[in-house]
């Protein structure tokens, strides 16, 4: 059974064969061989201990309904450059076409012959042996290449809207590459939404990998807003390579979806680089959100800071696994990590595992994890002023998320996410 699922999930039809350059073809061949040896991850593997991923694999028939119509999407009133991506595929006809000349955006097939793409592609991905990276290597057939030129800043945020729709009998694989050349700066908002209709929900399993390269002195503020349908599953892997004096900020808001697994790998590959990872998850019913972060301190004088907070209701399951590795070279490292969860229901569960592995001797590192209920004293205070229990809870949850929202520099984006959190917990 598992064998047949595995084979189904490798796309043997070779959509791209013939037009693909050798470096891609070779990558696919290698990955397919690895996959034949590797099984689907199960709960005996440490990385999937709390997330029974095989239960979420696609089954049955496909129903792809691509009507290419404009889609209601969040942040619609935000002044931004909009890029629409449907099931991983770049849709120029639904995207803003007038982009500043410092910014290039290409679909994956058009990117293959770009020298910059060839230089960077899979430079982070090649470090990863895991099943979903290999599956993606073997089978990716869509994606984006975003290229911001040296010294440039955009007048407004770039908003990539990842839309999922239809039903698919196999896992979809998309692959993106985002390159910030030296001293460039970008606010990148990525929304993940399901295009649901009243009759049918979106029954898709998407395995997306994005590689981000931050060249010297560049800054990327990356906000991810995940609001997926009740049958949409997403394994989203972000691999971020950060060079000297460059700074990456990640804000991951996971508000709904059947299953969301966020893998973030950060390589602080040159000295004096920084990464800040913030996350918020608000789960209901039987939703599962799994945040796996890996921060590699490879050189001295780097900083990483991580704060993930969440609220679990119903029978939802939260997973946080944050790993920080400080290599022998990485003296004067500062690394902090914190996970805080509020459980609103007795049936919800949280699995939190901060990990530190340190090979240098002159470093400052700390990590911690807390779980608890909403403060009853504060709830009573609000209620004693005429605020209903439900509203009081909502206010408290918003207050809990506030310290994360205040880290988003773009005020309009922070404001809209704040509103959505409030609405969701109503």
């Amino acid at each position, binding site marked *: 059974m598992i064998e047949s699922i595995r084979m189904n999930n490798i796309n043997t039809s070779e959509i791209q064969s013939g037009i693909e350059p050798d470096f891609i073809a070779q990558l696919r061949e290698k990955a397919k061989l690895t996959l034949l040896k590797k099984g689907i991850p199960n709960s005996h593997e440490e990385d999937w201990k709390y997330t029974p991923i095989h239960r979420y694999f696609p089954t049955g028939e496909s129903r792809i309904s691509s009507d290419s119509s404009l889609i209601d999407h969040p942040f619609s009133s935000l002044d931004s450059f909009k890029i629409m991506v449907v099931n991983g595929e770049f849709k120029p006809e639904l995207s803003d076409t007038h982009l500043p000349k410092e910014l290039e955006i290409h679909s994956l097939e058009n990117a293959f012959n770009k020298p910059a793409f060839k230089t960077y592609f899979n430079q982070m991905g090649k470090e990863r042996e895991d099943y979903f990276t290999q599956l993606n290597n073997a089978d990716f057939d869509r994606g984006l290449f975003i290229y911001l030129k040296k010294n440039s800043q955009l007048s407004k945020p770039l908003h990539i809207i990842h839309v999922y729709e239809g039903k698919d009998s196999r896992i979809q694989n998309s692959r993106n590459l985002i390159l910030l050349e030296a001293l460039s700066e970008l606010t990148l908002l990525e929304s993940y939404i399901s295009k649901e209709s009243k009759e049918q929900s979106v029954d898709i399993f998407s395995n997306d990998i994005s590689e981000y390269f931050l060249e010297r002195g560049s800054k990327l503020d990356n906000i991810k807003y995940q609001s997926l349908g009740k049958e949409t599953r997403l394994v989203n892997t972000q691999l971020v390579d950060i060079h000297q004096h460059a700074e990456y900020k990640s804000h991951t808001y996971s508000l709904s979806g059947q299953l969301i697994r966020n893998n973030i790998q950060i390589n602080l590959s040159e000295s004096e680089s920084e990464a800040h990872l913030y996350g918020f998850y608000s789960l209901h019913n039987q939703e599962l959100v799994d945040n796996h972060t890996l921060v590699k301190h490879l050189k001295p004088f780097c900083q990483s800071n991580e704060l993930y907070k969440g609220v679990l209701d119903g029978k939802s399951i939260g997973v946080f696994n944050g790993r920080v590795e400080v290599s022998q070279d990485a003296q004067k490292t500062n690394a902090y990590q914190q996970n805080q969860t509020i459980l609103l229901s007795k049936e919800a569960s949280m699995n939190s595992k901060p990990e530190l592995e340190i090979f240098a001797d002159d470093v400052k590192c700390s990590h911690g994890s807390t779980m608890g209920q909403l*403060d*009853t*004293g*504060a709830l*009573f*205070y*609000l*209620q*004693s*002023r*005429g*605020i*209903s*229990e439900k*509203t*009081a809870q909502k*206010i*408290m949850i*918003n*207050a*809990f*998320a*506030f*310290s994360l929202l205040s880290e988003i520099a773009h005020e309009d984006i922070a404001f809209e996410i704040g509103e959505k959190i409030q609405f969701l917990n109503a």
Partner: protein
Amino acid sequence: MMLKIENLQAEIQGKEILKGLDLIINPGEVHAIMGPNGSGKSTLASVLAGKPDYEITGGSVEFKGKDLLELKPEERAAEGVFLAFQYPIEIPGVSNINFLKTALNEIRTYKGLEPLEAKAFLAKIKECQNLVEFDAKLTGRSLNEGFSGGEKKRNEIFQLAMLEPDLAILDETDSGLDIDALKIVAEGVNRLRNQNRSFLIITHYQRLLDYIVPDVVHVLYNGKIVKTGTKELALELEEKGYDWLKELNPNLEETV
């Protein structure tokens, strides 16, 4: 009648605190309750506001003819009960102004009224800030976060002014205040007194009652009201100390 408490008994974690308390407050009256530590003063305030930690084991509380003990804390607030906390809670991330807007509008919804328009709301904020001398800068900040003791207490009185309750319970509002802060708080309360609004002022010391002059003074001891009088009773109590009560009532248990 505003409030009628009969034979009220309450406990926390199995420990009996109120042991048959009786009290009647009419509209417009200011009652003070004094008593030594552990006599049940703050318990009475918490029980009236509906704090869930306490269990009512006997007696009844009628508020404007309704059974108060049947109501949730937010319903009590909407009906017109207000508790100024002894230790106001800090809630980082909740702005004072949004908190008040939510509270005011939920109470209005309960009463079947439309939410207040932004303009009217802001005008009311301004009026109440002036009335109780509450710093406008604090209104925009997170609820009580980083406020001094005096600012927190003043914020309680500001909320009182905004929510316009029928019965305001002040739980040791004077504790931790220096004399200047105390005067400002008392002045705010005096401005909010009127013929329909009643006050229940809980205090350990007579000092506050120099500035907010009560109509009636009660002495609470070991979970019961043991003596009731005029404002002179407060002075007498201050002078003779709480031991005087034991001399007056040799039957009083000393099991506090």
